[in-house]
């Protein structure tokens, strides 16, 4: 060990950076999918599971009788069988109060716990009450475990990306989720900025770039200036509640309208999943067929790309409007750009590409996988923060921050697109003789009236000495740090009376809630991985049994009496195994049941094919096969 290592300022490695058994990762915590990546010597790569799959769907299933929820692909599979137990797209609820949920309307497939109670939204998942922060923490925990499994190191530091347009409450909620998952957040980085980082370093790009980021649930447009390793955000805009999920919803609604019947709440999620597959199919084909089977009725529908385009056109137009506004904000004309970068899975939709190309007058860049580019950028930043780097990110406040003044008006203290970190003070005074306290209401948004903006926090500065109206001088200071997180302090000049608030009480977790959750997660720390593997094995077993039961109900006549008994016995064996905590036993019993059931499955398939073919002319069969 060398005692006299001298480092250039700011380049001192972290205390642990030299340790080979620890690593800092980059995480893209998405609405639909999440990814984790690591960068070594400026080369970022996605961390994949044993099958080479880099994506962890942002889906969490809470199963009956299981303490540990199930996350990712396995949870996605549960969605069709037990939609009530599955939480998807939870990112849309991050930092939301119960009051905000009304505006999301029927878009949520999940039950909200006691709406109207105020404070943070909580979900009621079959009687289990969970907050969006806890659900997100489960996803982050899974990503952390994946990274530790792949790297064989402890992973306890991360750069996590958030939509540039996330407000302060949503950023705070994201930070809380990471803390709950046992991750120290090195920095919250805006998704478009992370994408630009991945592109910029990849192509040694210079000049002005627009990053159009349309994910599952959020839309961001950012304008950046890239110059000699500096990534300077000039302006940002977007819509924190607009994404590919909305395309699915419109498509599903059109199909349901076509059927002409009502849909039960429990059928919504499976139908959305079908709509999503149809949307994906329409990326490469002009038309696709969609089969719906719910409410005891199976229907088949044709969906053409033209019709899909017409459905989503108003939403795409909204994103294009936001792009124009950002260009205006930055006083930049589209031809002055050096390039347009596409980020997010929803930018695969051909109409989106065409409209973006039309607005900016050039073909957008999409040569880095739009699903992976954000995580890759986050990994680069994680490396920069722990090992040092020549690049520098200079980001901005996405939405103006201000205070409520007399008459419900908003006084902006920090206008949007101000570079961060930033600190601004504004002086206020009392308006009544002898006034000894002042209520301070912090809001975020661009509108003139308080009620049209996002309320972030309220607090009271008490202990102002009694004076005539207008004599007291109260200085309110807004400070936004490099993560984009806001702190507000208020101080009376004469006496030095002070009050301050880290803006979290309305929508983030209170310190007591956080402490209680952390305590709980320590108590549950018993071999997390083992528990999760057991839960996943049980899920697979349960799925197989459910599938078998419904197959027996329909095609039970295909089995001889002996075969039926053998099948029942194998099923009993699985049920017994599932009652234990022995994962090996569950897996073995599941495999045994699958083996016994295989001839039955084959006979069912034959029968289905015959019935599908009967009465179909050969020419029609061909078109059907092509369309499928």
């Amino acid at each position: 060990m060398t005692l006299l290592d001298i480092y250039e300022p700011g380049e001192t490695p972290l205390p642990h950076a030299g340790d080979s058994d620890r690593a800092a990762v980059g995480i893209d915590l998405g609405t639909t999918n999440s990814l984790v990546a690591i960068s070594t010597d400026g080369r970022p790569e996605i961390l994949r599971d044993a099958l080479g799959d880099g994506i962890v769907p942002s889906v969490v299933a809470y199963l009956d009788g299981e303490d540990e929820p199930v996350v990712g692909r396995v949870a996605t599979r549960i969605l069709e069988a037990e939609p009530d137990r599955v939480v998807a797209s939870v990112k849309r609820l991050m930092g939301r109060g119960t009051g905000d949920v009304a505006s999301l309307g029927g878009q949520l497939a999940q039950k909200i716990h006691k709406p109207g109670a105020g404070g943070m939204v909580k979900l009621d998942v079959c009687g289990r009450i969970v907050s969006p922060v806890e659900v997100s923490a489960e996803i982050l925990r899974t990503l952390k475990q994946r990274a530790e499994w792949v790297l064989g190191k402890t992973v306890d530091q991360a750069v996590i990306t958030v939509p540039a347009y996330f407000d302060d409450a949503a950023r705070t909620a994201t930070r809380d989720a990471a803390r709950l998952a046992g991750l120290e957040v090195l920095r919250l980085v805006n998704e478009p900025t992370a994408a630009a980082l991945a592109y910029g370093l990849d192509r040694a790009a210079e000049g002005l770039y627009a990053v159009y980021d349309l994910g599952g649930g959020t839309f961001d447009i950012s304008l950046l200036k890239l110059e000699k390793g500096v990534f300077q955000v000039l302006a940002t805009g977007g819509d924190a509640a607009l994404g590919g999920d909305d395309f699915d919803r419109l498509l599903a609604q059109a199909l349901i309208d076509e059927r002409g019947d009502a849909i039960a709440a429990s059928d919504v999620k499976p139908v959305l999943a079908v709509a999503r597959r149809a949307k994906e199919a329409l990326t490469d084909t002009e038309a696709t067929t969609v089969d719906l089977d719910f409410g005891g009725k199976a229907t088949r529908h044709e969906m053409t790309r033209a019709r899909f385009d017409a459905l989503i056109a108003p939403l795409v137009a909204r994103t294009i409007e936001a792009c124009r506004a950002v260009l205006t904000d930055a006083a930049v004309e589209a031809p002055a750009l050096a390039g347009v970068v596409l980020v997010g899975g929803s930018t695969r939709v051909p109409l989106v590409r065409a409209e973006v190309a039309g607005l900016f007058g050039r073909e957008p860049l999409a040569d880095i996988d739009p699903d992976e580019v954000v995580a890759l950028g986050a990994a680069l930043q994680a490396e920069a923060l722990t090992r040092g780097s020549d690049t520098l990110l200079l980001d901005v406040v996405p939405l103006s921050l201000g205070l409520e003044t007399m008459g419900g008006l908003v006084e902006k203290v920090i206008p949007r697109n101000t570079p961060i970190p930033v600190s601004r003070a504004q002086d206020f005074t009392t308006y009544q003789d002898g006034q000894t306290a002042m209520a301070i209401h912090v809001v975020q948004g661009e509108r003139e009236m308080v009620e049209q903006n996002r309320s972030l926090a309220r607090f009271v500065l008490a202990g102002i000495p009694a004076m005539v109206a207008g004599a007291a001088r109260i200085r309110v200071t807004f400070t936004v740090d490099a993560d984009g997180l806001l702190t507000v302090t208020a101080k009376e000049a004469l006496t030095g009376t002070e009050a301050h608030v880290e803006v979290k009480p309305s929508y983030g977790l209170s310190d007591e809630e956080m402490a209680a959750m952390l305590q709980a997660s320590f108590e549950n720390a018993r071999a997390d991985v083992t528990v999760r593997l057991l839960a996943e094995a049980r899920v697979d077993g349960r799925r197989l049994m459910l599938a078998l039961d419904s197959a027996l109900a329909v095609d039970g006549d295909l089995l001889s009496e002996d075969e039926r008994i053998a099948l029942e016995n194998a099923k009993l064996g699985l049920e017994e195994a599932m009652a234990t905590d022995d994962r090996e036993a569950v897996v073995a019993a599941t495999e045994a049941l699958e083996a016994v059931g295989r001839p039955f499955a084959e006979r069912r398939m034959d029968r289905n094919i015959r019935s599908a073919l009967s009465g179909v002319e050969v020419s029609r069969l061909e078109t059907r096969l092509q369309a499928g």
Partner: protein
Amino acid sequence: MSVSVTPPVSCTSCGGQIQDAICGGCKSLQPPGVIDHFARLGLSRTFAIDLAALERAYFQAQRRFHPDRFAGRGAKEKTFSLQHATLINEAYETLRDPLARARYLLDLEGRPLPGGDGRTIADPALLMEAMEWREALEEAAEPAELRALAARVQADTAALEARLGDAFAAHDLGRATNEALRLSYLTKLGAELRRKLLPGQAVP
């Protein structure tokens, strides 16, 4: 670039004498000193600045002090770097906008611009000009007329900035105040014009 910390102080970490924002002895970051925006970015105190040079100085300063550079340091240095970066941003934001720069220079001279928001106009000549502009804005309705007016505002703004540069260079603070007031009015007019050109869009 050198950021001077006001008179010789001792390092907050090792106690040694320091000349720079980063201690020459133990290499630890010091709290930001009380210096003006120009000095913070290593620029000379004048109105006529080269925007490209300003940007270079800004990037250079942030490269040195931004919290991303101190992510691995102790809490004290992290706080100092946050303070440095905040002040560097404030300096950049103030100096890159001609009106804010003029106002700041007048503040430094102890002659703050009266009626800061450009609503009150005392000078009769400027009042006449303002009324003419206002009339032109109200009469312009067609997009072509509005665009022609916007071009005029832009040209006048550029000319004003040149005159402001001269006034500050000659240390003629009376003239500088007058031209700054004119610029403040023109800036407000430009914003209204943009709002009229782009209905339905928020203008900062």
